[in-house]
């Protein structure tokens, strides 16, 4: 898809919150990023009205690194407000539509990025990209926590935030991953990483958690594709073994508790001063001034998560929930590490169902929405790198297969994506412009 009719395409799919169709003639490639990465060339709102109009004075490290090698930032993509959501319906600036069926969700939070990657055939960067990759039928690689600098990423969960790559082409992972990774003095969490070495070790053996099989939360279409994928992996020489990983069932709770706790502190800074709308009544006392802004400009899901996270951190709750969740997270990490003594990756479906229609999303309860991430929650809480590849289609919609490997082992995932691309026919969405 060329970028000449980007305005028309965006009217249909609403993947961009901001874009330009004036591509620099000397650009080596175009790319897009989710709207929680700061950029000098576009406003950055993270899908929230409380940041509307914010024009950062600096590029995030990832954007700068992409520009340094000749990339041209074509646009900022729509996303759930501050990354709060599973279906990209919590944005103040437009809900992206699935390229395979515009009545369905792109997944969240970085739904616009996956949509852009599917429609424009370019690379898009985003956070929490597995669900969008699965729903939009593109490759998604989320590197280890700390592998990609978070400088310039508007944080919503400090111990989870990661920037990953979305692309229709498996080869893009090998091409762009080395560009965005690496130490950055602006982000201490990036400073401990070993060098990225692509090539060498290949994936030879994978584990399938027994908890996935016969799990009633996984739809029939998804489990059938998943089972066919296992046969495909065996056919290319990969050993597959079923294992017991009992801690899987705790990941959603651990994620929800820690993420909302961190989010409630991260978002405390937004108060009608310094960035975003600042048109309040200065005669109000500061408590009232801050409260009036936050009540008016935060969206529904953001308010809910701030309340949940604030309550969890209060006396009487913090030990029972927050500190407990931190200890259980260590247990989940240890459980996964034990598997990596024998296996190169753990595989599951990426999402338990195909992209739902917007009508169905609106009927989901808060808890249903959180629980729908029970497969992606584990690699997120463990900080381990993971990859989603398209492994089948049901009702015409893509289904994702997810590989999780040990910390810093992105090389086996990049290699796996390319091997998978050779053996599976990934379909392009038919784009209506």
């Amino acid at each position: 898809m060329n970028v000449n009719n980007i305005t028309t395409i965006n009217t249909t799919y609403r993947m961009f919150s901001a874009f330009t169709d004036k591509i620099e003639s000397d650009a080596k490639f175009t790319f897009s990023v989710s709207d929680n990465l700061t950029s000098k060339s576009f406003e950055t709102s993270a899908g929230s009205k409380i940041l509307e109009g914010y024009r950062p004075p600096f590029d995030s490290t990832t954007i700068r690194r992409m520009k340094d090698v000749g990339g041209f930032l074509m646009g900022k993509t729509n996303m759930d407000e501050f990354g709060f959501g599973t279906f990209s319906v919590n944005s103040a600036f437009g809900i992206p539509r699935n390229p395979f069926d515009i009545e369905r969700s792109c997944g969240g939070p970085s739904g616009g990025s996956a949509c852009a990657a599917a429609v424009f055939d370019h690379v898009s960067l985003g956070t929490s990209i597995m669900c969008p990759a699965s729903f939009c039928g593109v490759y998604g690689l989320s590197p280890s926590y700390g592998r990609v600098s978070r400088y310039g990423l508007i944080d919503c969960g400090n111990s989870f935030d990661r920037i990953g790559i979305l692309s229709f082409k498996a080869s893009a992972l090998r091409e762009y991953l080395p560009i965005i990774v690496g130490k950055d003095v602006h982000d201490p969490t990036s400073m401990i990483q070993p060098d990225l070495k692509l090539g060498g070790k290949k994936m030879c053996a994978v584990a399938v958690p027994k908890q996935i099989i016969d799990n009633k939360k996984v739809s029939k279409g998804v489990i059938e594709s998943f089972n066919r994928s296992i046969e495909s992996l065996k056919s290319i020489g990969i050993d597959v073994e079923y294992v017991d990983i009992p801690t899987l069932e705790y990941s959603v709770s651990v994620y929800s508790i820690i993420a909302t706790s961190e989010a409630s502190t991260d978002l405390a800074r937004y108060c009608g001063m310094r960035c975003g709308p600042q048109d309040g009544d200065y005669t109000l006392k500061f408590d009232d001034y801050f409260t009036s802004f936050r009540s008016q400009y935060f969206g529904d899901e953001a308010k809910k998560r701030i309340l949940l996270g604030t309550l969890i951190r209060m006396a009487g709750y913090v030990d029972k929930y927050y500190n407990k969740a931190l200890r259980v997270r260590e247990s989940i990490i240890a459980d996964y590490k034990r598997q990596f003594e024998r296996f190169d990756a753990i595989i599951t479906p990426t999402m338990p169902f195909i992209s739902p229609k917007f009508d169905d999303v609106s009927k989901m309860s808060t808890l249903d929405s959180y629980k729908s991430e029970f497969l992606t929650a584990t690699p997120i809480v463990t900080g381990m790198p993971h990859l989603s590849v398209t492994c089948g289609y049901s009702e015409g919609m893509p289904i994702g297969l997810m590989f999780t490997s040990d910390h810093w082992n992105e090389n086996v995932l990049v290699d796996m994506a390319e091997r998978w691309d050779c053996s599976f026919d990934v379909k392009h969405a038919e784009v209506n412009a």
Partner: protein
Amino acid sequence: MNKEIVKKTACVAHIALTDEELDRYSTDLDEMFRYFEILNDAPEIKNHGFNPVEIADVLRDDVPLMEIPSEDCIADMKTYDGYIKGPRLL
């Protein structure tokens, strides 16, 4: 979930809730906390960090630098005489 607790939490978080929001969030939070009870039986490891990977202390020399000019930083801020405007304290 006791609505008074949710109200108090909202006050701490600087968010004013409508009656409808108070009802709905109380129900949602109640549902979430009941779900979190699953962790009561979860195995745990005492020595935990706050990040999923080890984070090194990274120190640098204390060298003054100006990566972003201050006028660029405050370009979009409401200011008065070079100072950021805010609500009154008293």
